[in-house]
């Protein structure tokens, strides 16, 4: 039975993707009456994050052939109105490939499984011991962290049995079966569109200035890696990193600092880059006589550019990276706890807080336009005729007639659940790796690795996301990078990998006969490489990339289309697009002014007691009255 909704709005927003959600929040914030619909039962559309179960359901829906579209009941249209059926051509996911690399059920002794389970539960239910280890250490799920924790608990006899103990703990922990993983489905948050935030990027600034930041929590990306000379290396990104790194010689360090400084000095930009306006960033770097080592760091890891990137574009990208350093953590990046899919929801919440109406599992079946096709009157949703002054719509729902000039670009995505980090360290890392184009033909691949401290997966596992521009299929496009970084052979969890752990970094060579073959690193021969992560489960898919589409050509003047996920690392594109749409609708109004905090509002007669921090019960009061007043005054 469908719910009856009020029938008149200032803005109807269809789809809860990133741009749509920001626009919804911005309109509601200035007192506009907003209805926000999504035909899915979840928020975010192609921007969503799912737990393991949710992702399975999503895949099922994707695999279903397009439902025969319901005919729109033209009789519902009023006189002088035309109905245009909503479409779905840009929400179609293709080349979906899911694969398991582990047994469905582990034929283990029940005792083993039991104790493994206990070990895990202990890890979670003794926050006190986590606390004792101190912030950060509790987050470590590597062997080092684990053993340290056991020591702190005081029931671990060492040192002689230390190694055996570590190994046994590890063995139990690694004993993942499909069923066990599925049982832990709630501990996963897997992103369809994983995005990082530049610490001084437009989204971070918007979250702070609008006060939406209070709805979300983040973690700093702990390291930036690059792939150079056939292996992974950390990229020195801060000044301290540059000075402490051993991968760059002292003269190189000076060269690098000089180059980065000149990229940052805007005033001298014209002089510095004179003559390079039409040349590539690589040509500029070459003119600076950078060593190939440094070229690689700057081009691929810092600017995250390619050989074709134009000079000024490369400089801007370098600036973006450098400007975001030093604000939060060691790298320029933040990652949202529980995944990128949280961010649209934060904007939706703000929209709701200011009166926006939310209805999931509710579709816009048709767009109602006037007889001339110049103006949108509203939408047909189920049996309801809903009128609106403006319609904002995710491109996935747009009628084909609204987007005639769409390019056929796409994203190639890979999601991998693995049993260890691509480059183990003593603490759990949150990693960004921009994998350079392997040969001229391939696109760079963005690799993001997250662990359980971001709630991406259960403890002991990692999630690796790969994204690149679509050329063929996701599987094909990502294959080379997958093979360099991950172990994608089936593993029944016995001999081969059971005695491998981080310590085997030192012993990997003696065990060279095992299934693992870190071929990339062997080539250098300088040091033994850590074993590649075993993939437990993987998913490949392609989805449309619509950020290049021209959305204004074929739509009525009060209809605004929003792109799906784009290739960029951050949400910058969506923020920009949302702001543009908002400004077209309400040119006079402020875009997401700061929402009030409860603490900052002082009640009448309470003047001067704003510093409520020390107040005791009963004295500190909230903004229940102030908030609504403010909202109403703007209507």
């Amino acid at each position: 039975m469908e719910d009856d909704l009020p029938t008149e709005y200032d803005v109807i927003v269809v789809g809860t993707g990133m741009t749509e959600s920001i626009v919804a929040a911005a309109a509601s914030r200035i007192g506009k009456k907003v209805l926000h619909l999504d035909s899915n039962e979840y928020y975010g559309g192609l921007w969503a994050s799912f737990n393991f179960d949710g992702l399975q359901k999503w895949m099922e829906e994707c695999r279903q052939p397009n439902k025969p579209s319901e005919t729109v009941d033209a009789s519902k249209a009023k006189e002088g109105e035309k109905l245009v059926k909503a479409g779905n051509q840009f929400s179609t996911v293709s080349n979906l490939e899911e694969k398991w690399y582990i047994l469905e059920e582990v034929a283990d002794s029940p005792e083993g499984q039991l104790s493994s389970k206990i070990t895990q539960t202990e890890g979670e239910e003794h926050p006190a011991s986590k606390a004792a280890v101190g912030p950060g250490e509790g987050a470590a799920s590597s062997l080092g962290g684990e053993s340290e924790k056991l020591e702190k608990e005081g029931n671990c006899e060492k040192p002689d049995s230390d190694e055996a103990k570590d190994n046994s703990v590890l063995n139990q922990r690694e004993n993942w079966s499909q069923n066990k993983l599925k049982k832990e489905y709630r501990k996963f948050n897997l992103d369809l569109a994983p995005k990082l935030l530049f610490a001084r990027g437009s989204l971070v600034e918007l979250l702070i200035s609008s006060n939406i930041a209070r709805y979300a929590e983040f973690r700093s990306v702990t390291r930036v890696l690059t792939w150079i000379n056939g292996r992974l290396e950390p990229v020195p990104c801060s000044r301290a990193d540059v000075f402490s790194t051993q991968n760059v010689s002292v003269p190189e360090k000076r060269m690098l600092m000089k180059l980065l400084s000149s990229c940052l000095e805007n005033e001298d930009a014209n002089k510095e880059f004179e003559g390079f306006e039409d040349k590539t960033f690589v040509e500029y770097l070459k003119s600076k006589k950078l060593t190939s080592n440094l070229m690689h760091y700057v081009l691929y890891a810092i600017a995250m550019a390619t050989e074709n990137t134009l000079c000024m574009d490369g400089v801007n990208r370098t600036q973006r990276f450098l400007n975001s350093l030093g604000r939060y953590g060691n790298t320029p990046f933040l990652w949202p706890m529980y995944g990128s899919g949280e961010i649209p929801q934060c904007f939706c919440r703000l929209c709701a807080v200011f009166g926006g109406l939310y209805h999931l599992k509710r579709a816009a079946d048709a767009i109602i336009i006037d007889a001339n096709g110049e103006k949108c009157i509203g939408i047909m949703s189920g049996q309801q005729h809903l009128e609106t002054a403006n319609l904002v719509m995710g491109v996935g729902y747009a009628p084909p007639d609204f987007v005639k000039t769409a390019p056929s670009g796409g994203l190639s995505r890979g999601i991998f659940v693995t049993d260890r980090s691509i480059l183990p360290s003593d603490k759990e890392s949150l990693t960004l790796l921009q994998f350079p184009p392997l040969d001229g033909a391939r696109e760079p691949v963005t690799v993001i690795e997250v662990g359980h401290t971001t709630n991406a997966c259960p403890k002991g596992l990692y999630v690796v996301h790969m994204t690149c521009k679509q050329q063929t299929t996701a599987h094909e496009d990502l294959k080379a990078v997958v093979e360099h970084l991950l172990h994608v052979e089936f593993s029944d969890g016995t001999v081969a990998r059971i005695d491998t752990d981080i310590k085997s970094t030192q012993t990997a060579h003696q065990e060279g006969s095992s299934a693992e073959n870190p071929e990339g690193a062997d080539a250098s021969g300088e040091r033994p490489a850590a074993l590649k992560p075993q993939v437990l489960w993987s998913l490949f898919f392609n989805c449309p990339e619509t950020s290049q589409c021209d959305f204004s050509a074929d739509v009525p003047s009060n209809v605004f289309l929003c792109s799906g996920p784009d290739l960029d690392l951050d949400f910058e594109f969506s923020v920009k697009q949302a702001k543009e749409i908002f400004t077209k609708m309400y040119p006079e109004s402020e875009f997401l002014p700061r929402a009030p905090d409860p603490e900052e509002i002082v009640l009448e007669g309470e003047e001067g007691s704003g510093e409520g921090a020390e107040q005791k019960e009963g004295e500190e009061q909230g903004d229940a009255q102030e908030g609504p007043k403010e909202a109403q005054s703007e209507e």
Partner: protein
Amino acid sequence: MANRGGAQRPNGGPGKICQFKLVLLGESAVGKSSLVLRFVKGQFHEYQESTIGAAFLTQTVCLEDTTVKFEIWDTAGQERYHSLAPMYYRGAQAAIVVYDITNQDTFGRAKTWVKELQRQASPNIVIALAGNKADLANKRVVEYDEAQAYAEENGLLFMETSAKTAMNVNEIFLAIAKKLPKNEQVSGAGSSGQTRRLVESEQQKAPGNCCK
């Protein structure tokens, strides 16, 4: 935000200060916002409009050696068409599921919300069931014993409350405060150590600000 950071530091006062996220759940019009208004401001409005603009309130409760600061989240109406976002539950250490003792449906829905919490929220969440509008005893349709039995079965705190008369309002928050683990490092759904809320300048990122 500065106050929030400050509030978590002991500031030389007695005992420690713990901050918890508490979410409200329940059907529209059962009195979720009224309960919070009564608790936070000591006020009651007979014809309280549905919550606009103020879906995020704070209030402190003093226990013997601890000050518990509640960061109270209201649904902002997103429950109305069953469209509450999962982010609402994230990191919530406590929840009050509210029903109206004069409306049987709302009690049924309360049970659904409890299930939803068990499905979506942190496994250690402290849940309280509040049978609100206890001042309307003459219109009662949900029996005290029935709700009490249900709460016991599911390990919930239970009280009948009245936002209008203030009956059991402070008490239910106090009961929750008592039941919450007071170790400062304890938090919901795995958020530990280095998670952060974004604030205007990093200076405000006091150690206490990022661990709730």
